[in-house]
């Protein structure tokens, strides 16, 4: 499958989702940063996210991930991801899976709401989803051909402390990331922060597509902070990304042109995503097995 075919396939999938699937309001348009919002218990959210970019002197790529997010409890959300990518002039490869869990630490709403995040990743070196940026991750990792990069198996544990506040319609979220390859190597650190707000805080009485309340705008900032051996050294990747979310008939579409701020960063990337929810999924599944 060529890069062009892959983009067309993705665009067709997005249009299909747009036409048929319902989602919940209130989700943030972030790609990297987590806020304290948990999935409603028994609800399954399916999200597709894409990222396209090109390392300096390398081939363009389109990475994609499919996310299945389930609300196990009001305070516990669990997610499963499948990752893949296609690189122009090379190949399309499945790059692994991730399983993450988020635990809300305080049961009531506070000025700052902390959430603990633990993830197990079983991916390979060809992964280009840039789901998080840690340590000294750089655009030059993307120069390694898929055939070689996929031989590099990565089994990693990733932890995050998520802090999130909701103030006068604004959401402000900060994530502190620590990641460790189980095969060895030092702890790697990173961060992500984001801020967003709907264009209108009150909803209009009519059903509408282009109302201001349906649009969220904001920005994300993320990057590596080095490793336990060399913390805050030079050569890390740093990114800034304006984000826009658009709620269309209960489906959230989001897009983020992303700009690298250092030499190690990809110069420009584009992220895009769409999500939808199946409410009462757990209940329906239980019924199916009880019959």
């Amino acid at each position, binding site marked *: 499958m060529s890069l062009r075919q892959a983009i067309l396939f993705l665009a067709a999938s997005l249009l299909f989702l747009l036409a048929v699937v319902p989602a919940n309001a209130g989700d943030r348009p972030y790609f990297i940063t987590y806020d304290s919002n948990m999935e409603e218990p028994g609800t399954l959210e399916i999200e597709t996210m894409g990222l396209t970019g090109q390392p300096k002197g390398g081939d363009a790529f389109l990475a994609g991930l499919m996310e299945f997010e389930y609300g196990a409890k009001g305070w516990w959300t669990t997610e499963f991801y499948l990752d893949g990518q296609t690189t122009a002039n090379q190949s399309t490869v499945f790059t692994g899976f991730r399983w993450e869990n988020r635990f809300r630490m305080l049961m009531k709403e506070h000025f700052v709401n902390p959430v603990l995040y633990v993830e197990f990743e079983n991916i390979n070196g060809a992964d280009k989803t840039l789901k998080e940026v840690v340590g000294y991750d750089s655009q030059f990792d993307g120069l390694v051909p898929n055939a070689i990069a996929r031989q590099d198996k990565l089994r990693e544990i990733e932890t995050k402390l998520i802090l999130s506040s909701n103030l006068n319609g604004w959401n402000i979220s900060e994530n502190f990331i620590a990641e460790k390859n189980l095969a060895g190597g030092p702890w790697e650190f990173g961060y992500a922060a984001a801020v967003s707000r709907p264009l209108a805080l009150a*909803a209009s*009485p009519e059903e509408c597509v282009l109302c201001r309340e349906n649009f969220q705008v904001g920005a994300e900032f993320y990057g590596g902070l080095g490793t336990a051996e060399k913390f805050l050294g030079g050569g890390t990747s740093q990114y800034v990304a304006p984000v826009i979310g658009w709620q269309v008939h209960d489906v959230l579409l989001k897009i983020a042109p992303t700009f690298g701020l250092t030499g190690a960063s990809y110069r420009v990337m584009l992220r895009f995503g769409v999500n939808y929810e199946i409410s009462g999924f757990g209940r329906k599944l239980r019924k199916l097995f009880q019959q």
Partner: protein
Amino acid sequence: MRPRVRSLSGVTIILAIVTTFCLTLSTVAQEPSFRNAPASAAQMKNPYEDNPGAAAAGKKLYGQNCSQCHGNNLQGMGPAPTLINPATQKAKPGELFWFITNGDLNKGMPSWAGLPKPQRWQIVTFLESKFSEGKAK
């Protein structure tokens, strides 16, 4: 000295009666708050009280965020309870707002603090309008 002792004991008895009366009155008057909402929540005023436009917007928001669990007619579905119950209908607008904001994570009600404050009040306005409709019938 004797008359003074008598008058003192009289005052004590009257004080005891008044105190007992006040305590009884306060116990009767103090109904438990809705879902353990703090007293400050009950004091909050709905900025959209009796505003039909806000109720209509709240209906739309209820459809997007709440109806999947509580049903289109507030009847409740699965583990989520019906909202047409005396406790919810008696709850003050501020208490409903507080509960929507905080949820009850241990019992499966999510926090909706991610929704902007005006939208949470619009949902409260919609619920109040539905409760009023029910009373009118």
